[in-house]
């Protein structure tokens, strides 16, 4: 992905360091504020033993800015678990994430004391687990206004006689939830929502000190859980997007293949009528592509939306108009009469007309129309000259002539390749664009113009 430039995506270690520095700085400034002269050692000790003060606001501000840069949500989740474990002194911390293909929430990271820490990857909660339904069904009466499910609230509900007597269903539900929370020793369950979807759950054990979590701490957890949800959702969207891009690419390739195959089928129709030109279009196309490789980078190519594709299709279809030329002319042995030649000459216009209704092939139609134009303006149908003839038409003209010279025709015998090359050179600048001829010669010298498929069909 283009946005994944190494500079912009800090490494795990680097982010980890930023995190740790943040907490160290915070601790440092607190120590500074207590000048050793003004307070006795005992007082200081008392202060440090008091409920650990934590500047959540400052931490979160810095943290969320750093966190958002994690490439993978798993890294962010590891960071969250690590931070809670190191800063809050709880028996254990765990994060369960929804895995669609498993239809359950899998424990993907955890920390905590020996025996209480739930091993990573060891447990899952299925979708209909009461603990999950509390959140996914948004049973708000069970959840405090912070969005957190607290085991204390569940206990309070179970002790409430009113619920026991009047709402036995709710009582049973509470019992089930209590049991699930006990199984994973959860004091708090914090949901990670994105929009209305429950993407995961952050599970916290008790504080080792046995104290209750403060409002501020719970707010902190909610923020972390939201950050995690955001990161997961983003990663998911990006993954989806990449998948979509792949699908579109594949569709494009398929469509392109259909295009090419349709063109080949159409040329087969022409070839079938004219045994003498058997394989002609195929060879011309190969020559054109070889020439194009030598022309790589010339500015004119930029005039085409997709040069190579247009060239390939135009080369395949350049003689499509022969479909409109009567058989007796097309297959005539010996020299054509002037009026017959006029008929033959129509094939480039007919070809363009056939392709005209296909909007996507408008570029191709133009090249087909002009593939019989000559560089000096002596060609047909419009007598275009020099650079007024489009590039692809100029390429096809050379490749087409070369194949005509090196294969048998009803009206003439084939010539040797060397003679054909001489003829191209001779006509360079008059019939042909000299640049294209040079490119053709280059390709020929490199061995990219292979003519060994051009025997007379009847000799095969």
């Amino acid at each position, binding site marked *: 992905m283009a946005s994944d430039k190494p500079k912009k995506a800090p490494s795990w270690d680097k982010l980890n360091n930023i995190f740790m520095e943040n907490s160290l700085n915070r601790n440092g400034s607190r120590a500074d504020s207590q000048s050793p002269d003004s307070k006795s050692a005992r007082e200081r000790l008392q202060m440090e033993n008091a409920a650990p003060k934590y500047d959540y606001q400052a931490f979160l501000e810095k943290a969320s800015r750093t966190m958002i840069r994690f490439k993978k949500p798993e890294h962010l989740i590891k960071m969250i678990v690590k931070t809670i474990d190191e800063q809050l002194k709880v028996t254990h911390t765990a994060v369960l994430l929804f895995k669609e293909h498993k239809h359950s929430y*899998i424990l993907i990271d955890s920390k905590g004391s020996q*025996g*209480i820490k*739930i*091993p990573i990857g*060891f*447990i*899952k909660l*299925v979708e209909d687990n009461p603990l999950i339904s509390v959140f996914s069904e948004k049973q708000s009466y069970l959840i405090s206004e912070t969005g957190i499910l607290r085991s204390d609230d569940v206990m309070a509900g179970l002790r409430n006689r009113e619920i026991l007597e009047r709402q036995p269903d709710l009582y049973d539900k509470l019992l089930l939830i209590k049991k699930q929370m006990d*199984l994973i020793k959860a004091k708090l369950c914090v949901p990670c929502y994105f929009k209305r979807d429950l993407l995961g759950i952050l599970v916290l054990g008790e504080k080792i000190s046995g104290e209750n979590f403060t409002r501020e701490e719970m707010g902190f957890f909610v923020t972390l859980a939201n950050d995690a949800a955001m990161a997961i959702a983003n990663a998911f969207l990006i993954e989806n997007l990449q998948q979509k891009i792949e699908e579109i690419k594949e569709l494009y390739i398929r469509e392109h293949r259909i295009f090419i195959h349709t063109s080949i089928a159409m040329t087969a129709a022409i070839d079938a009528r004219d045994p003498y030109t058997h394989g002609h279009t195929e060879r011309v196309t190969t020559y054109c592509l070889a020439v194009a490789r030598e022309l790589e980078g010339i500015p004119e190519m930029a005039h085409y939306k997709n040069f190579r594709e247009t060239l390939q299709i135009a080369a395949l279809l350049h003689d499509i108009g022969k479909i409109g030329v009567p058989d007796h002319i097309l297959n005539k042995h010996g020299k054509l009469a002037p009026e017959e030649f006029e008929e033959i000459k129509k094939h480039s216009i007919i070809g363009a007309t056939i392709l005209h209704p296909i909007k996507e092939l408008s570029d191709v139609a133009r090249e087909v129309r002009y593939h019989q134009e000559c560089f000096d303006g002596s060609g047909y149908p419009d007598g275009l000259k020099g650079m007024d003839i489009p590039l692809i038409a100029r390429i096809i003209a050379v490749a087409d002539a070369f194949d005509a010279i090196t294969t048998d025709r009803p009206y003439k015998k084939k010539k040797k390749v060397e003679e054909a090359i001489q003829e191209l050179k001779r006509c360079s600048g008059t019939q042909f664009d000299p640049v294209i001829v040079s490119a053709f010669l280059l390709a020929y010298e490199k061995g990219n113009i292979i003519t060994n498929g051009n025997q007379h069909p009847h000799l095969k």
Partner: protein
Amino acid sequence: MKKLLVVDDEHDICDFVKSFFQERGYTVLTALSGEDALVVIKEEKPDLVLLDIKMKGMDGIAALKHIRDIDKNVKVVMVTAIEEQERMDEACRLGACEYITKPLVLDNLEHAVEKNLK
């Protein structure tokens, strides 16, 4: 009190499963390898073994064969990753009572042990 043996080469899993079942009134022993498990079974004669299949050294299947040589009656519940279906079938032929796939549902783990120790 029923005696369980948890065999897994992951420390965290042994510790977690141990405290999980201790809290539910079992005596729980642990072994970090198939080899260790055989020693413990000989000496302690547990009622049920929770046996991980994928372990370094002697794996769960090999351990199960040896366990059968030592003690014909000990119940064995295999704990395994989902992709090891073939080896689970083998374990069943070797007399494992049942298997649980990881990641597991804790209720199922609890039930599997309870059920087989009735």
